[in-house]
């Protein structure tokens, strides 16, 4: 990583030094043209993509009609208006796809963007569902895991498919949107990379670090600008004094074009057989004529790809045969997993597709999740400066290899700060430390054990039947719990206290007054534990309780009461995954009062008293 970054810096410097020369041969002009032509281009681009899109859709619909699903084109709304599927697709895609749009209730904005009344919301959604949903699924599948290619090419010619991928990766709209972020993002990315070099790169997969770094990026943003500006001053020594802000921008761009190219070459080198990286239309080569390297790289790439395409026609799945990576044996399910995998709290990293979907902070989040792979960062940092095709192809990169095949995956850290010092085995047992072996708690040493319990068989389960009047009733269960507790207490003697069994179970609630218990419940009901200051508040409300008391009460009394209530009232919907979320079911739905079955309070007192009586 470090080596690579010096390379970039080096090339950046070279570039700066050569600026004069480049200006001479109209390089800056080329860039200008590119920029001005950008808008023009993007219109062309849109038309082209639109046509392409309709081609694909019609092929797709034909395909599905052969399976008996007839979907007529063009698509009409209720009032005879024609619906532009392409626009619809784009705007949904921009918002993260069908499921995200539905989840976040964004259909209204989609409808609005299409210039329709909100009353058509339902039918637009339906149309998307009928016409485009499967297509979208196919698109994600192809994107997220390359492996889908083989299936999809069943109904799409190779070229069409490839172009279509380009289309899907960056619609003209999102491109425009990104344009605004160019400067911001490239600054961020630069800083990001710097930070990345300083930090130990291998730790980056950690969620926590991601956040830190994101913050860092934002905090040091100003710094970074200053730094760039300093660069500018240095450069001014080389260039003449006419260098104004605009030219500075161009210079920066130029630098990035070059580094972008390097990234791209590197990318290709690492995925020599992947058709999704950068095939450039030969007619566009002209635009790069000022840049010898570009041309060379592109030609080399072209040659490589030609080879590959020849191969791909003769072999059905060459990539599977060429690589023996275990992930290749994985069934075609990457996609399904991605969508079904639950978002599992902080220990699990954000699912990949998600980071792709954001638009504004897209590059930031996408690269945080993939930080160890330096190519991705830079691929992300450079696309804004590339002509449309390049944008697409580079932007595709983070999506192509969701995880397994990534050559730059997280490595084991080595060095004096990571490994344990293991002495060489000398054949002699080293110092025998019998000092700390733990304190024996059980069996009791002083024979204080009550012998009458001995007779019970070990490891017996719950008894099937008892003599209680109502078996399985609240009273019955409470009675037996108290009974077994008493037995345990008699048997364990002092161990009972060592193991804190005296602060276990509903016993804990005995130390709380009814008033306190009520206040605790009320607080639990009215506060989300998500709130950080909540526990501090709790402490304020219960000045005589320590935090330990509160935690103990929470697990031993509050939660158990809640569970027993849930077990009886809503046995099907117990969320055992999260204790905290149980408060949710508490406050809505049945309401807190429901827990107070008529004789609940009475029972509690009664049973607790019995418990103390027995003691």
């Amino acid at each position: 990583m470090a080596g690579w970054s010096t390379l970039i810096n080096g090339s950046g410097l070279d570039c700066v030094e050569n600026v004069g020369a480049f200006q001479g041969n109209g390089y800056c002009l080329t860039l200008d043209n590119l920029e001005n032509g950008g808008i023009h281009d993007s219109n062309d681009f849109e038309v082209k993509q639109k046509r392409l899109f309709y081609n694909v859709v019609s092929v797709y619909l034909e395909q599905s009609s052969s399976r008996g699903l007839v979907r007529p084109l063009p698509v009409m709304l209720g009032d005879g208006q024609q619906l532009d599927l392409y626009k619809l697709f784009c705007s949904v895609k921009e918002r993260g796809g069908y499921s995200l749009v539905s989840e976040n209730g964004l259909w209204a904005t989609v409808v609005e963007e299409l210039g329709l009344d909100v009353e058509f919301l339902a039918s637009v959604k339906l149309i998307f569902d009928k016409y485009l949903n499967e297509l979208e699924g196919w698109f994600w599948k192809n994107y997220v895991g390359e492996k889908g290619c083989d299936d999809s090419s069943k109904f799409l010619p190779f070229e069409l498919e490839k172009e279509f991928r380009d289309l899907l990766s960056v619609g003209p709209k999102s491109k425009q949107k990104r344009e605004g972020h160019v400067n911001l993002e490239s600054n961020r990315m630069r800083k990001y990379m710097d930070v990345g070099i300083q930090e130990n790169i291998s730790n980056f997969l950690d969620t926590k670090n991601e956040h830190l770094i994101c913050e860092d990026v934002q905090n040091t943003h100003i710094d970074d600008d200053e730094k760039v500006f300093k660069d500018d001053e240095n450069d001014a020594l080389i260039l003449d004094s006419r260098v104004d802000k605009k030219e500075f921008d161009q210079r920066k761009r130029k630098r990035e074009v070059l580094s972008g190219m390097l990234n791209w070459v590197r990318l290709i080198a690492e995925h020599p057989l992947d058709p999704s990286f950068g095939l450039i239309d030969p007619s566009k080569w002209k635009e790069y004529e000022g840049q010898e390297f570009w041309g060379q790289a592109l030609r080399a790439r072209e040659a490589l790809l030609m080879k590959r395409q020849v191969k791909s026609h003769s072999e059905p799945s060459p990539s599977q045969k060429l690589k023996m990576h275990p992930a290749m044996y994985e069934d075609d399910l990457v996609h399904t997993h991605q969508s079904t995998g639950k978002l599992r709290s902080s220990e699990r990293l954000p699912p990949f597709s998600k980071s792709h979907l954001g638009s504004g902070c897209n590059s930031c989040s996408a690269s945080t999740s993939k930080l160890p792979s330096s190519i991705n960062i830079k691929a992300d940092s450079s696309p804004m400066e590339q002509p449309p095709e390049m944008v697409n192809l580079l932007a595709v990169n983070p999506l192509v290899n969701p995880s397994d095949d990534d050559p730059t995956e997280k490595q084991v850290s080595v060095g004096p700060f990571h490994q344990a010092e293991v002495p060489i085995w000398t054949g002699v047992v080293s110092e025998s430390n019998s000092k700390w072996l733990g304190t024996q708690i059980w069996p009791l040493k002083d024979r204080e054990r009550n012998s009458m319990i001995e007779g019970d068989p070990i490891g017996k389960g719950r008894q099937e039947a008892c003599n209680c009047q109502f078996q399985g009733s609240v009273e019955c269960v409470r009675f037996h719990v108290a009974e077994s507790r008493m037995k345990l207490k008699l048997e364990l003697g002092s161990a009972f206290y060592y193991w804190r069994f005296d602060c276990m179970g509903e016993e804990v609630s005995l130390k709380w007054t009814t008033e306190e218990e009520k206040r605790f419940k009320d607080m639990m009901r009215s506060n989300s534990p998500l709130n950080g200051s909540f526990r501090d508040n709790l402490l304020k409300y219960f000045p005589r309780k320590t935090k330990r008391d509160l935690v103990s009460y929470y697990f031993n009394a509050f939660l158990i009461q809640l569970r027993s209530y849930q077990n009886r009232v809503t046995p099907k919907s117990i969320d055992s995954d999260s204790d905290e979320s149980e408060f949710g079911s508490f406050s809505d739905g049945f309401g807190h009062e429901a827990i107070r079955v008529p004789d609940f309070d009475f029972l509690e007192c009664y049973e607790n008293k019995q418990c103390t009586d027995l003691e």
Partner: protein
Amino acid sequence: MPSKDRISYFYDGDVGSVYFGPNHPMKPHRLCMTHHLVLSYELHKKMEIYRPHKAYPVELAQFHSADYVEFLHRITPDTQHLFSNELATYNLGEDCPVFENLFEFCQIYAGGTIDAARRLNNQLCDIAINWAGGLHHAKKCEASGFCYINDLVLGILELLKYHARVLYIDIDVHHGDGVEEAFYFTDRVMTVSFHKFGDLFFPGTGDVKETGEKEGKFYAINVPLKDGIDDPSFTRLFKTIISKVVETYQPGAIVLQCGADSLAADRLGCFNLSIDGHAECVRFVKKLNVPLLVTGGGGYTKENVARCWALETGVLLDTELPNEIPENEYIQYFAPDFSLKIPNGHIENLNSKSYLSTIKMQVLENLRCIQHAPSVQMQEVPPDFYIPDFDEDEQNPDERIDQHTQDKHIQRDDEYYEGDNDNDNDHDHPMDDV
């Protein structure tokens, strides 16, 4: 049927009241529930229960850097805002929050594992259990994945005082990266981890290609799995690999990390293992009849954690537990069935047969490399009266090997050096490009 093994079980009542903070999936209260369940099944009658000593900072610094241990000792929730740089350096904060009694908690669970290792060393027991331990992500100089102090490394270091070779087995759903990393360069510890790998699943390491380096080359084994692996495939793979490992490596002691997040329906896990499948692995390791240190680990659906570890305590005691959970204070947590077994998970099994067999082949292939290049440490543990008649430091390492091993090695001599050389040349190219 009485158990032939002597079992030491470690528990400290104080861990139950440790609280990581709201919405943190790690709930030490599960240890309290486990212990309670063990007692309600009356398993305590068949074993000795100890309260571990609280490990001293200097003991923790056997592995961890002294400054890190000192910082853990010093930091409190009230002072943490003053140390934001250090917090970042030591990776404390989100996943590994600073809470009250943090250091005491670390001392207890690390002390438990160290004590357990010492009891094994002194042959005071055959199996030692510390469900509070098993925090396998902690690194030498930083916390990671809910783990602060790596008790496993400390326990293994303790075992290494008496045993030439220690085998570490990890069936947590997450990769045992902290332990692997700590012993990445040594052949005195072989680490074997079965875990979910891919999709950026925490911690991100644990590909089959990671096999160790230097002397430790091929002494780290990783079995990367995909979502939804079920009992039959998991136990078959486990048994095949572990039996081959034990045959090849002949460990003097085994440390088994029984993270319960590989169970179905875990809050953070993604496997389909039933408690029986999980316990089957424990049973298998127990049957190897090697001194065994069993620890807990992950496990974030706490009723299931308690069920699993109680059942496995039973397995280690050769006691079959009836499915109906006896009445106890926490019975309400085990609703609605109040039974020990949990239904199997229904996550789609993404591990195809061909995938699993590829992984297996690759692991076995790596193991073969050890056979062909027997390590310095392969001799039997000498009896107590054995006194080496030469000064270790002055010996040429190669000669020393020969002195020690000439009688005992069954390997062919001609392959010995060849294999050794291969070992050195192959550092950057593990077997993955076959």
